[in-house]
């Protein structure tokens, strides 16, 4: 079941098209990567989903209903441009932002307590935001985003500004939220950073969706049956079933990328190689999302 369904959304600004007939679905309970280079239209799409702006045409369904103002309380949004009221205390700020999402004061207070205990930041509550380090502010903002326990959490460039330790902490929290039933949208132009986390992705380029679906399926579609082999000996492939894409020899050590042809299997290749050379490593070369993106963009350009 999809939590969010985007149907033919188009958005035009005065002098350019930000989104051109974009459609895809986001399944419930997954981590969804909204990927694309800067200026592709990701933020425009997010602003339409968060109802900051409206689409010129197209429909969006949230939990099967047309998107409406009431859904705001079920969506959490961490914008790329982070910001909090600098001269406001952490506790008051969290309370304020959560109440604006429609929570009662007592509920909000109870949840704030739970979150500050988990992040061990109780002593920050009475501090002004401007007295916190940038990383601390990011943590506070992350809490503010998820405090009202939204069904859909939208994170725009979530890891920018975090050091590796805190980035891992946030990653764990995101996985925990997902396991608790939330759906998470990652929006980023650094595709490699979220590849491992995402269950599904949509690629956007120049206002258009170029690709979407489960990461595994996409990778299966784009894999080329190519394997990287490293070993000792002189490798010379003569079989018509295997094509050498690339080969380097260095003092008796070789590294070769070999593609399977004519419906041969990796085992066929292994058998063939074992008779000739000593194998140290045998890995399937799976295209990264980045590679797929570049390939896809090139394709669409040629058309």
């Amino acid at each position, binding site marked *: 079941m999809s939590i969010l369904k985007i149907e033919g959304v188009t958005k035009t600004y*005065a002098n350019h098209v930000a989104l051109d007939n974009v459609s895809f679905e986001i399944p419930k309970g997954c981590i969804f990567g909204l990927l694309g280079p800067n200026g592709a239209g990701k933020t425009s799409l997010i*602003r339409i989903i*968060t*109802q*900051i*702006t*409206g689409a*010129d045409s197209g429909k969006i369904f949230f939990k099967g209903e047309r998107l409406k*103002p009431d859904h*705001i309380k079920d*969506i959490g*949004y961490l*914008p790329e*441009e*982070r*910001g*909090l*009221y*600098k*001269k*406001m205390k952490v506790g008051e700020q969290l309370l*304020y*932002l959560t*109440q*604006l*999402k429609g929570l009662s004061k007592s509920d909000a207070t109870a949840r704030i307590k739970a979150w500050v205990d988990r992040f061990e930041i109780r002593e920050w509550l009475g501090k002004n935001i401007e007295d916190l380090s940038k990383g601390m502010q990011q943590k506070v*903002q992350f809490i*503010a985003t998820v405090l009202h326990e939204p069904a859909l959490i939208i994170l725009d460039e979530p890891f920018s500004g975090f050091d590796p330790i805190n980035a891992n902490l946030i990653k764990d929290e995101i996985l925990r939220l997902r396991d608790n039933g939330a759906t998470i949208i990652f929006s980023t132009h650094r595709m490699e950073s979220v590849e491992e986390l995402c269950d599904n992705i949509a690629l956007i380029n120049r206002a258009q969706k170029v690709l979407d679906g489960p990461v595994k399926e996409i990778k299966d579609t784009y894999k080329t049956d190519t394997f990287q082999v490293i070993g000792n000996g002189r490798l010379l492939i003569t079989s018509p079933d295997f094509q050498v894409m690339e080969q380097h020899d260095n003092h008796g050590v070789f590294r070769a990328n070999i593609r399977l042809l004519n419906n041969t299997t990796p085992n066929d290749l292994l058998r063939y190689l074992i008779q000739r050379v000593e194998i140290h490593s045998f890995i399937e070369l799976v295209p990264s999302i980045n590679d797929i993106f570049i390939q896809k963009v090139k394709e669409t350009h040629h058309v």
Partner: protein
Amino acid sequence: MSKVWLIIQREYLTRVRKKSFIIMTLLTPILLAAFMILPGLLITMSGDTETVMVLDESGLFEDKLQDKEDLKFIPLAGSLEQAKMAYQETDYTALLYIPEMSIDNPQGITLYGKKNTSLQTQVRLENTLEKEIENQRFLASGLDRETLDKIEANVKLNTINLSDEGERDNNAIITSIAGVAGAVIIYFFIFMYGVQIMRGVIEEKTSRIVEVMISSVKPFQLMMGKIMGIAAVGLTQFLLWIVLSFIAVTAVSAAFGIDAAPSPAAQFAAGQAAAQGEEESTATATVDNPAGENEVANTISDVKRSFANLNIALIFGCFLFYFLGGYLLYGSLFGAIGAAVDNETDTQQFMMPITIPLIIAFIMSYSVVLKNPDGPVAFWMSIIPLTSPIVMMVRVPFGVPAWELLLSMALLIAGFIFTTWIASRIYRVGILMYGKKINYKELSKWLFYRV
């Protein structure tokens, strides 16, 4: 609506808790009290030992000018020139010269002073002399003072304006003061708190909280919440100022034992009352004199009645209306400016068209409207919403036909609905726009953007 309420609360509480707000709120009444008390204090200080030299060539007042607690007379002899010389060598308050004259035609009495003699002293001397001349005339006609006191009736007319245009004669000063004071307060509050709205919006933009906010609330709610929250701050400050000023002035006057606000009218009244009171007490030689106290009470109630004639309810009602109306009209425009720019230095070019009508209204109030409150300039400026909050406030105490007032109010309401609409169109586009140099052409396009 509850979201707007939350925003109002935040805007209100964060501002009211600021140190600058608390200091401003406390300091202003203290300064005000100081300004009101200080002249009075100085007068009484210098007036403690007011001594007047008297050169009486007529001989009419010989031994009649009796020393009082804070007013001493020193009789002189010789020519006027000698008296002047003698006076120059002293540091006495004044030299009273009474030339040769008959009691039927008391002309040519002159008061010489080194500096301007206070109105209070002047009136007091005049009254003393008048009384004495009257006394002597009565004696000449066979009446003594005591008999006279018994038959004397004290009638004061209450002046009430019947015509719509108003025959504003003796209330003119107080009328002008009430109107201008209201206009000045409105002018300053629009500026002070309008700029606060603008700063608040810029702060939200620069701290980048705005995108988080408008994923929870509509831009219009955010803008209105801010405008209303700051209006509440303004009203709070205003009310605190009134209360605290009252307390401060009362406390200081009690501590120093002097009258505050020595306005010319009050000084005049005080001088007259003091002179009459003293006269009576010396004449009847009793300390506790009901007649004298009545005089004082009457004079004070006169001033009070002048205020009452102004129709306090109408003026105060108009003040609140134009205060809020003007603030809302300009406040939303200030908010729009804040949304259109990235930082405060860029606000200048957009501030101009907003500040100019305000400043013109303010200047015209003094130069034209006050002199001719029913003239065409006053009429038009009090009808046009951009200037009406200030100009109409000046006009109201003089009496304005009901239809003009209603038209002006209706247009002000229409005006602020219109400016709020414009502002909200600019605001919703502007708050998400960064790093773009904005000009008027761009702004006018924003009005018709679909968001």
